[in-house]
């Protein structure tokens, strides 16, 4: 197999101009290059060949923010808190809710598009960015809503900074593609502490210090990537690099007319295997709305109720199994002490890799 010529836009999106595509590929390549430093098993698809034994390793997790769940005492409280602001929606999935005059939910829009893509799009094709906002958020969106007086794109603009007025792309501080790349890279280093190789989600993230150990996503991404690295393979994120919707499960859901609740879930951006935007909405001619559906017998009153049933994914790719000669790390850099499920207490140090403020283009 040969090297990749360029990183493709996430989800196979076609919004970018040729210049935009080039900038996008350059951006991802630069982030991957940055992340490979000190991570000998992590590689850049543009610089290093992916061998014929390549295998993809999908990683999926639940979209509802675990940190909110951990710190709430009831379902209603956690749903309410998760619906309250985008800043707590930190599992690489954010949403915005539309209600009718009575407060009943009529539509929930979910996005897992990284903000960096929109930086590039807005910089290279501002008219396209505006058109997409008008198409997906509101016809009322104006250019001045999206760009500051200096012409710079504003990620958290008035149409993308709440859970009520639209969600065009991710804005939560940790929800960036740069963070995704850094996390995967950091997890690609094997860690043998006190003679014991770390393998578990919690012990790895505590030791390696990537991401937030209380999220669903970060520990799991790290553990899966590390499991591949333990096969002495080289590993990276598959092209197109991005976060994607994995699925919406509707087991236990019911619509008033007996129709299939899954049929109201629609992907509106991204290709079939890499959807990046989804809408849950009942067509007007059905005579009922999202808020009339039930989950486990209870009506849908929060967008977060739907998030409980959404899974988000990324895909890693690995090759050259058994060939890596990289030596494992023998000390920890995480901020917390680590123990293994067997005797042995690794040392501790401080470093954190899932950023809270992403690099911009």
């Amino acid at each position, binding site marked *: 197999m040969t090297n990749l010529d360029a990183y493709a836009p996430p989800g196979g999106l076609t919004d970018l101009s040729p210049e935009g595509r080039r900038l996008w590929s350059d951006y991802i390549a630069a982030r991957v290059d940055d992340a490979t430093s000190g991570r000998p098993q992590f590689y850049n698809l543009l610089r290093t060949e992916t061998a014929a034994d390549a295998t993809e390793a999908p990683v*999926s*997790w*639940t979209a509802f923010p*675990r940190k909110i*769940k*951990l*710190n709430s*005492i*009831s*379902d*209603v409280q956690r749903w309410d808190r998760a619906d309250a602001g985008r800043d707590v929606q930190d599992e690489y999935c954010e949403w915005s809710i539309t209600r009718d005059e009575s407060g009943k939910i009529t539509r929930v829009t979910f996005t897992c598009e990284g903000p960096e893509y929109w930086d590039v799009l807005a910089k290279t094709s501002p008219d396209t960015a505006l058109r997409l906002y008008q198409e997906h958020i509101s016809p009322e969106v104006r250019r001045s809503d999206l760009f500051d007086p200096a012409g710079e794109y504003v990620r958290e603009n008035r149409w993308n900074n709440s859970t009520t007025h639209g969600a065009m792309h991710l804005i939560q501080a940790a929800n960036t593609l740069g963070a995704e790349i850094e996390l995967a890279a950091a997890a690609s280093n094997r860690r043998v502490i006190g003679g*014991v190789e770390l*393998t*578990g*989600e*919690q*012990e790895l993230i*505590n030791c390696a210090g990537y991401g937030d150990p209380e999220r*669903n996503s970060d*520990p*799991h991404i790290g*553990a*899966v990537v590390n*499991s591949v690295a*333990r*096969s002495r393979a080289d590993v990276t994120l598959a092209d197109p690099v991005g976060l994607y919707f994995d*699925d919406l*499960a509707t*087991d*236990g*859901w019911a619509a008033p007319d007996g129709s*299939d609740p*899954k049929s109201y879930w629609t992907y509106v951006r991204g290709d079939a295997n890499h959807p990046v935007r989804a809408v849950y909405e009942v067509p007007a001619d059905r005579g009922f709305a999202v808020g009339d559906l039930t989950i*486990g*017998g209870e009506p849908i009153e929060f967008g977060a109720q739907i998030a409980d*049933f959404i*899974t988000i994914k990324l895909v890693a790719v690995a090759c050259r199994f058994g060939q890596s000669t990289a030596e494992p790390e023998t000390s920890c850099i995480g901020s*917390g*002490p*680590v*123990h*293994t*499920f*067997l005797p042995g207490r690794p040392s501790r140090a401080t470093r954190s890799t899932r950023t809270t403020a992403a690099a911009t283009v």
Partner: protein
Amino acid sequence: MSNPPVIAPPLDTESRPATARPQPPEPRGFAAAARAANTVYRQVDGVDELPRPMTEAELATLGDPMAELLLRRGTFPTTLPALLEGLAEVAGRDVVDGVFLISESGQIPPEVAPGLRRDIRFAIVCTVRGRETDLLISAGANVDPARTFLQVAAWDERAGAFNFYMRSGTTWIWAGDSWAALEPETRGRGCFDSHVNGGVVMKELKQPWINWQSMSASIRLAADAPLRTDPLYQRVEGAEELEIKMRGLVGRWTAARLSRVAGGEAVEHPDRLLRQLLTTTTVNLTSTETASAAVTRDLVLPSGFWLNTDLLINSLHLPAAHRAWPAVPAAHYLRSLTNFGFRLEDPESGFFKSGDTFFAFLVPEVADEDNEVVRQMVRRGLITARFAACALMVDFANPVFSPARAALMRYVPTGTSPAATLGESIATAIVTAAAARPAGSPEAQFAANWALAEDEWKPEFGRRLTTYLDAVADRARTEAGFDDYVRLAESRRLDFRDTRLHEFALTLPVTEIARDAARLQMNADGTVSTRV
């Protein structure tokens, strides 16, 4: 007898859990030589003394995809791959919706315990017809497919029930349907010792889904484990997705059940429903979300240890005003592991490891299938939310194994009763009896609850829960208080250990507390005492 994920007991010794109670390698009187090929046998334990071939008329009553699409057409797959292939052939597509993996030893590194039997099992969810799950498979994953157990639970839309099957040799045995779980002669027998109320089972239902491969933890395999190359293993998904499916299936069976027994103006066998409110018919297992080896700061104990939170708070919306679930300082937890001699033991292999289960503080909690019956009874108006709350607030600090709540079963009618007045009539019977019972008796507690005005019971119960949670939160932060909760947790684990749901040596930790120690109870003031 049963394998946790889906259905009933392994029949062959090869894959039987190391410490499961003794099981015959074959059903009684079912010698290989006596089997007729391509024949469906039935053995509903409690009804059929010996396995016998099903008649055509009996087979015709089975309306699930296993019976209709395979067995009645003469297809008798004897391995998991053959079963999936057979289903795909009749469906014209891949029918697998999800492949899941469980092992009680899944977090023990294979290289440090080479003699430990791994007992890794697949749970496979299929949609053969329609758009909803209608067939579930449980099978050994790390053993010869021809020799390991192979079991199926298949939804029969016509009967509104699951049919339970197991492969034996080259034949299949029908072990009964969901309704048999409820009948006295078959209840708790055969596969219904784990499918206690006739549904499908995922004991470790909630995050972190201890023992399951999930987004919280992955099952460890040796680098050269043959399972790695199994096509099904390549498709394993996280238990977070199985939880959703299992909750949906429990809801579907419960709805079908209530439609049949309470669909009109009368309720058949109200006691069979109300026992799921007042007693512990079965349990789920829950734990903290923190790995026991990684407890370095306050450990938030599972909410189900304190209360039936799913019903009281999430379904009945009692307004408890506490801000967070009680937590224990890490030092107390770590010290308790030493003081109480926590360890994992597998007598068969000699495996021994000091410490707790992989995720810390594993305890039984109220089963979702019990709660789902109550939720749907309330939704259908068979009982009111107030009635359910008044009953659950009797001895509310003991969400499982409460003799006090169970004592109220004597007031529940066993015969067909009017649906419209079911809850009211039971309440009246209890209140009447309470007059002759001492203060503090279950009847008196219920009567006091029932006497609260319509606009008062919720706030009052909320206040009680808040007071209780404040008390246990304070006690959990003291060494003596937390030690009491460790003893209480072990008491509940011992209750679980006594049930036939407990099958695997490594499911529970072992402690220095004697297995016959007096059982304990939580009190509403947060203290722990010998169970009355």
